[in-house]
């Protein structure tokens, strides 16, 4: 793996030990769409040793405006399978598993128990609540990214530190997207900005480098060009956090 990761190893603070941590890691990426494309590409390029890609959807023409792993020839094929092929070709040294199912109470019990991190690139609220609660209960760090129209958000939730997705949005049964995802449209490049950010956070958590976006939410507004972040505190009434045994941020 020497020359492939030379530009990692030239970075200040980045040692062969950090690269080994990436190589030893297994990351689950749920959603192989607009966000999944940059996340999977950067994680595969970075040398994350094992990637599981989960998506139950097939590629259609309207995806090509932003889901940059796919081409016209892929229309009709399963997103997870095509995404896995593309990133496997990018880095033959890693292992990539496609799963063409949706994350659900049934499929969550079939998930590998050696996961080191989950990146949520899914496209709906129920999956997000389910995935977050499952990951944190399994003591697996959870990186989430989400997009809506011209805007995107990203944050990191460690098993025992940091406000979670539910802390920000409230109980699942009372949240509704505004505007509704498919009706609202998506400005394609926002997927790239926020997906790349989520990939960076995943690599930071896996290696231990840098300051992860814990207890903070990064926000991109491509309309105004604003890049901002806000502090987010755990919601004392959050159900996802009831059993997390939260410790304060340093």
């Amino acid at each position: 793996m020497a020359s492939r990761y030379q530009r990692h190893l030239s970075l200040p603070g980045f040692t062969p030990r950090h690269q080994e941590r990436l190589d030893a890691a297994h990351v689950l990426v749920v959603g192989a769409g607009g966000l999944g494309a940059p996340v999977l590409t950067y994680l595969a390029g970075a040398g994350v040793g094992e990637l599981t890609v989960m998506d139950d959807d097939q590629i259609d023409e309207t995806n090509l405006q932003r889901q940059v792993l796919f081409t016209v020839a892929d229309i009709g094929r399963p997103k997870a399978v095509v995404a896995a092929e593309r990133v496997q070709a990018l880095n033959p040294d890693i292992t990539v598993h496609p799963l063409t199912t949706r994350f659900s109470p049934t499929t969550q019990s079939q998930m590998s128990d050696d996961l080191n991190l989950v990146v949520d690139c899914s496209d709906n609220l129920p999956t997000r609540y389910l995935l977050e609660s499952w990951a944190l209960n399994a003591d697996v760090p959870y990186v989430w990214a989400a997009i809506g129209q011209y805007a995107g958000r990203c944050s990191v939730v460690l098993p025992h530190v940091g406000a979670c997705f539910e802390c920000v949005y409230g109980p699942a049964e009372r949240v509704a997207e505004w505007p509704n995802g498919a009706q609202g449209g998506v400005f394609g490049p926002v997927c790239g900005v926020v997906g790349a950010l989520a990939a960076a956070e995943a690599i930071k958590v896996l290696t231990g480098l840098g300051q992860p976006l814990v207890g903070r939410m990064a926000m991109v507004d491509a309309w105004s060009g604003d890049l901002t972040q806000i502090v987010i505190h755990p919601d004392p009434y959050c159900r996802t956090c009831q059993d997390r045994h939260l410790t304060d941020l340093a």
Partner: protein
Amino acid sequence: MTEAHIRYFAAARQALRRSEESLSGADSLADIVKRLSTRDPAIARLLSHCSFLVDGTRREPDHAPLPDGAVVDVLPPFAGG
């Protein structure tokens, strides 16, 4: 007189036509939502979907008094991928 600093994000910026503002005499989150909602029915609809953080912690739009100088973040929820 209490003053609240309100920050609007994503679709809330378009609806309110600004990224932030200060409201004086803002007694509670419920009061703020009520005052903003009278501006336009579209704003009222949007706010009924939004999540509100007061100084970083989520709060229901209730009648609990706000601390003077509270920063209120207005976050329309979205989950696209």
